[in-house]
């Protein structure tokens, strides 16, 4: 494998890691506040559909982004109402949201576009354009570092850079602000937060809302950045892989970045049978390559996580003392 192939794989790793990173950070906020969210998958799917649909109709990806965030946020609100207000089972609510998104996206896509549950392919301003970072062209002749900068770091859509910026931002919000301290506390010991006179309900809804925005961006990137249009079930388990990455990262933002980059790398490798063949020296079945990200998710979850302690009050609805 030559250096250029490696750069190509790293480049596609970053692209494939982006939706995972958004979803992983989304889950991070939600679970740190004590709300389990199995519905990351559904929220991404809904955002992917609505953003592609609106972008296809109006030709503006920014309108699409807005619509996608709204779709994801409304499902977040549903999850919040079910699991915070009515103290329902959070896993079941998440599963319901996944099915709701899975069914509604195809139903509405069929009703609007009649293209077998797809949206029309997006072109031009309907997609996020690739941004060439400053000096990328000038530096592309510099060996190794310059090539790396031009090939891997530069040339992605805005959402990729937003995802990368979201990592330090999440770290700052969670670990250096009063809001973040309270949010983490509400996931560990909500009664203590309540005693201090801070609303548990409001904090949890805020966390679920942030989760919705981040998930929405992940979904929007899937259909308008990574792909050019929405297809049935296009999230393909990414919401669950993000949850596995979250456990691997032990609910920490920087580790979430590393974990999702690893998963992105594995997905990128699985897309390059020629490289795998060259590395291993024999042909690998295409079905095995397709299953590889899922198998590795299980392997990493089972073998390499070590002791991962989730937030203590996770999954428990809070009942105020009377």
């Amino acid at each position, binding site marked *: 494998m030559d250096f250029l192939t490696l750069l190509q794989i790293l480049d596609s790793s970053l692209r494939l890691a982006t939706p995972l990173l958004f979803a992983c950070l989304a889950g991070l906020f939600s679970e740190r506040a004590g709300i389990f969210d199995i519905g990351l998958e559904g929220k991404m799917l809904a955002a992917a559909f609505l953003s592609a649909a609106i972008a296809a109709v109006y030709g503006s990806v920014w309108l699409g982004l807005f619509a996608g965030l709204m779709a994801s946020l409304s499902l977040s609100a549903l999850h919040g109402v079910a699991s915070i207000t009515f103290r329902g089972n959070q896993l079941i609510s998440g599963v319901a949201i996944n099915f709701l998104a899975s069914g509604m996206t195809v139903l509405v896509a069929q009703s609007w576009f009649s293209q077998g549950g797809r949206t029309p392919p997006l072109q031009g301003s309907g997609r996020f354009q690739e941004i060439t970072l400053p000096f990328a062209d000038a530096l592309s002749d510099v060996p190794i570092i310059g090539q790396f900068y031009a090939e891997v770091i530069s040339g992605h859509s805005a959402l990729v850079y937003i995802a990368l910026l979201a990592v330090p931002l999440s770290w700052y919000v969670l670990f250096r602000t009063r809001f973040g301290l309270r949010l983490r506390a509400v996931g560990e010991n909500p009664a203590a937060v309540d005693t201090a006179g801070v609303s548990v309900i409001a904090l949890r809804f805020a966390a679920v809302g942030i989760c919705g925005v981040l998930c929405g961006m992940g979904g929007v990137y899937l259909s308008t950045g990574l792909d050019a249009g929405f297809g049935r079930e296009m999230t393909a*388990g990414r919401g669950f892989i993000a949850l596995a990455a979250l456990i691997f990262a032990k609910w920490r933002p920087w580790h979430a970045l590393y974990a999702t980059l690893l998963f992105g790398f594995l997905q990128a490798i699985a897309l390059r049978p020629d490289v795998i063949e060259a590395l291993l020296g024999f042909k690998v079945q295409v*079905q095995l390559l397709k299953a590889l990200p899922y198998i590795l*998710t299980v392997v990493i979850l089972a073998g390499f996580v070590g002791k991962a302690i989730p937030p203590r009050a996770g999954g428990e609805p809070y009942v105020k003392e009377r």
Partner: protein
Amino acid sequence: MQTMPKWADILLIPLINLMLAFLISGLVILAIGEDPIAALSLMVDGALGSSYGWGFTLYYATNFIFTGLAVAVAFHAALFNIGGEGQAALGGLGVALICLFFPWPHWTIALLAASLGAAAFGALWATIPAYLQAKRGSHIVITTIMFNFIAASLLNYVLVEILRPPGRMDPSSAGFPEATHLPTISDMLNAVGIPFAARTPANVTLIIALIACVAVYFLIWRTKLGYQIRAFGKSEPAAKYAGISSVKITMIAMAISGGLAGMMAINNVMGEAERLVLNSVEGAGFIGIAVALMGRSHPFGVLLASLLFGFLYQGGAELALWTSIPRDLIVVIQALVILFTGALDGMVRRPVEQMFLMMRKRGG
């Protein structure tokens, strides 16, 4: 304290939940520009209006009884098995191997062997996540979902590379031999003189599904193992204190759950298709979640909920045939049923409890 009578808990609240789910489904149909009342009457007519419709409704219901019982058994151990889809797919592989590679003299023996094969393959596929949960603490919801994807790839590989007869284009196995074909409900009813539409897929597996309901009832409420499963589900620390091994119960409960999901394959693979095709499960594994929630994890409730979803599934197929409403409507209805009977249960329960309390105050 009992705030409301038992009938309200097991009948009234699920009914209100269901009504809400259907109401929203009706609004969804309205929103995509179709008439919900006409849609409903089309569904009732197509699924229940003739013995032909019933033949399909009962066939789908049989699938959902197995997957619903599978989810229900896991629920009793407080385990959430979303892997029914993959387990049923593997069950199909078990059925196919048994039917294709052994010469069976009669369908009764073949059915027995295929049931065991289906259950064994399904159970095997469920015990891997169970083991990882029990020993390594890997979240069973995530691992069972991953195993659904892995099962899909595995089945694809087996069908394309191994079981596909030479020269055939579509990835499916050879047809099963004549001796393994199961009698349909219409064969059996016509034999005793009751007319029932031919060429409907409901078959003898329905009886096995009913036996499975009774067996699960006895297992959960009348055996020591069932007691241990329920105790573990109610409180893991308490069960541990009572000497119940959490590893053992997790593994056994998931093996039973996976086995039940796998047994669905005798209905769809052996009874209906009579060969193994790609994506034979068609979402029945996921519908099991809605069925188990609606049936309150009780076999009788699962049976009723399965009939309802059998009706919805066949009715949905009729809708897709005669109107522009796609079959995916059933996924939306399924989601709404899970939402209202599972997650939003408290929304209905609390006002109803209040109502009964007020009535009691006034009466007493």
